[in-house]
């Protein structure tokens, strides 16, 4: 369905490398997630796929159409939802939907079955200007507009960024339903917890793909012991753990520090005694199952990254 080969994109005459020799393939009907922090290159990749950007080298294809040469075909078969709300704020919900249906040469009625579940939720506000909608409703409208021409593939750039937890869950439920309609979905997100909702994910950072696999396989690949650690002085805890012999990664995760060691045989008691030696009190240590985020950190080998959530 989607085939990306050796794709490279730079900005500012090559000084900023957004994508470095990316290879990726997405199967038909897949719900594929692109997971990575801000600035990883997710938007650049999506813009190349939607024919908005021209890559420096390499090829990108959707259904064997080249994203540069066959841009006209690409635009017919893709539904794109940019990261920033890009519908007309001074047109109403209904007018936006009708406009985008008409410029794709179709009508709202023709493909109404596809958007019915989503659109009925915002239909009570169809006379309201799009600019006056709440964040969650804006996302639903944008998704409706991206779907109205019955695309073969949906490309969604961080659709859940800035949306509340309930709307995020609803949004993912909608994607699951669309998947059943046979639409291939390519979605990017900075939220690691959404990764497990995808069929397959690619972890991307600094323009490079770290790993592509099913979420569970990525977690299974994590072959170290992972410890969640807490103590009364969290800052000092971080500083001291960084000096730990055979340290692999240590980073703040919510109210815990997640810690891995290069020594695969390490025991809770080893860490406990190290911390006691460094005068820590209220020490809590537990071995836990890794999440996608832990895997990301393992791949990215970023020490001491203060996670934002």
């Amino acid at each position, binding site marked *: 369905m989607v085939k990306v080969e050796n794709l490279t994109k730079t900005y500012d005459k090559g000084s900023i490398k957004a994508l470095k020799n990316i290879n990726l393939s997405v199967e038909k009907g897949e719900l594929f997630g692109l997971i990575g922090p801000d600035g990883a290159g997710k938007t650049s990749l999506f*813009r190349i796929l*939607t*024919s*908005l*950007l*021209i890559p420096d080298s390499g090829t990108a294809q959707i259904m064997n159409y080249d994203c540069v040469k066959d*841009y*006209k075909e690409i*635009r*017919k078969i*893709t539904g*794109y939802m*940019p990261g*920033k*709300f*890009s*519908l*007309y*704020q*001074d*047109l109403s919900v209904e*007018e936006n939907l009708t*406009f*985008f249906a*008409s*410029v*794709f*040469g179709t009508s709202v009625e023709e493909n109404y079955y596809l958007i019915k579940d989503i659109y009925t939720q915002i239909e009570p506000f169809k006379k309201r200007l799009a600019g006056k909608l709440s964040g969650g409703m804006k996302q639903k409208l944008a998704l409706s*507009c991206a779907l109205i021409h019955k695309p073969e593939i949906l490309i969604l750039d961080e659709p859940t960024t800035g949306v509340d937890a309930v709307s995020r869950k609803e949004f993912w439920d909608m994607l699951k339903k669309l998947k059943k309609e046979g639409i291939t979905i390519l979605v990017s997100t900075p939220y690691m917890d959404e990764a497990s909702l995808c069929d397959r994910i690619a972890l991307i950072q600094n323009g490079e793909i770290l790993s592509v696999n099913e979420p569970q396989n990525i977690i299974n690949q994590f072959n170290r012991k992972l410890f969640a650690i807490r103590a009364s002085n969290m800052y000092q805890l971080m500083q001291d753990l960084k000096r730990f012999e055979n340290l692999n990664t240590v980073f703040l995760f919510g109210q815990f520090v997640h810690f891995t060691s290069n020594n695969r045989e390490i025991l809770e008691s080893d860490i406990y005694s190290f911390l006691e030696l460094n005068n820590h009190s209220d020490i809590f240590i537990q071995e836990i199952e890794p999440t996608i985020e832990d895997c990301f950190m393992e791949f990215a080998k970023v020490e001491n990254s203060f996670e934002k959530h």
Partner: protein
Amino acid sequence: MRTIFFILRKEFKQIFRNPMMVKLIVALPIVQLIVLANAATMDLKNINLAIVDNDLSTISRQLVSKFEGSPFFTITYRDFSEKNAQESVALNQSDAILIIPTNFQKDLLKENTAKLQFSVNAINGMSAGIINYYMQSIIIDFNKKIIPEWKAPTSDMKKIKNISITYAHWFNKELIFNIFMVPGILAVLVTIMGMFLPGLNLVREKEIGTIEQINVTPIKKYQFILGKLLPFILIAFFELSLGLLVGVPLFNVPVIGSYFVLYSVAGIYLLAILGIGLLLSTFANTQQQLMFLSYFVLIIFILMSGIFTPTESMPKWGQMINYINPIYYFMKSLRMILLKGSGFSDILPQIYALSIYAVLSISLAVSRYKKTI
């Protein structure tokens, strides 16, 4: 074709949904015409004159009464001191001083010649020139009458043939400045509408990001550009019509030429100027950048176009700039059609120039507008 219709419908909805826009469209031509045509006038109706008459003779009084009788002059100051008179100019109470020296009458009768002195406040060089011209014409007139009145008729006198020049100001008989200004203001009005609005509209799509969603649709470049052009051509035509509707009766502008010629030339001109506006918008990413860029181009073009000053009196290089100034061509055609009654054949050079401009600017704008980022 259907796509263009959908784009146009969307553009019109957005334009008329903007309350500021509607008010501006109606208010702009009326306010501009009334304020500018009245205020930016070169007519001098009231010149304050200080007179220093040191002669106080019959002839000098006759001369003073000539000025008193002129509708252009008001005597604001009479004194025997030149210094005081100069003070009154410095205090802005008088615009000019006329000094009649002692023995003015005596010299005139005996020597056949006498001297007078004018001093004109030349802070505004343009009005100083006009004041000077008015004063000279009064004195020349006075001179002509004084000779037969005071000189004994001799046989020689009868032989003197006076060459008298009479003149007529064609196309604006009384040299009323308003009549000259109204077509100029209409030209500027159409220009502002054409150059700013569609460009700003397009850049707004870039700024807000809606262009990203539009670019992934199968809308073609020319359809998108046409969707930006057509609504504003219609609005500009509406502005021109409203301007004519208000300006023509209000300032008694004679409309000698045909409206058909007028609107045809305006149509070509609009294509040219809208094309320039859109072309400029492809260089800008924000409305602020575009405002600066358009203003920079526009102010040069407007002032060079001959709206206030005759282009013929500009330096050679200035006249060269006007070869690429579309407003110059339109300003000239508009005045020729309205005041002179020129038809298509009279303004062919202007029509050619504007047509070339229209084709070039629109095709450049379409080719420069990219559907990629």
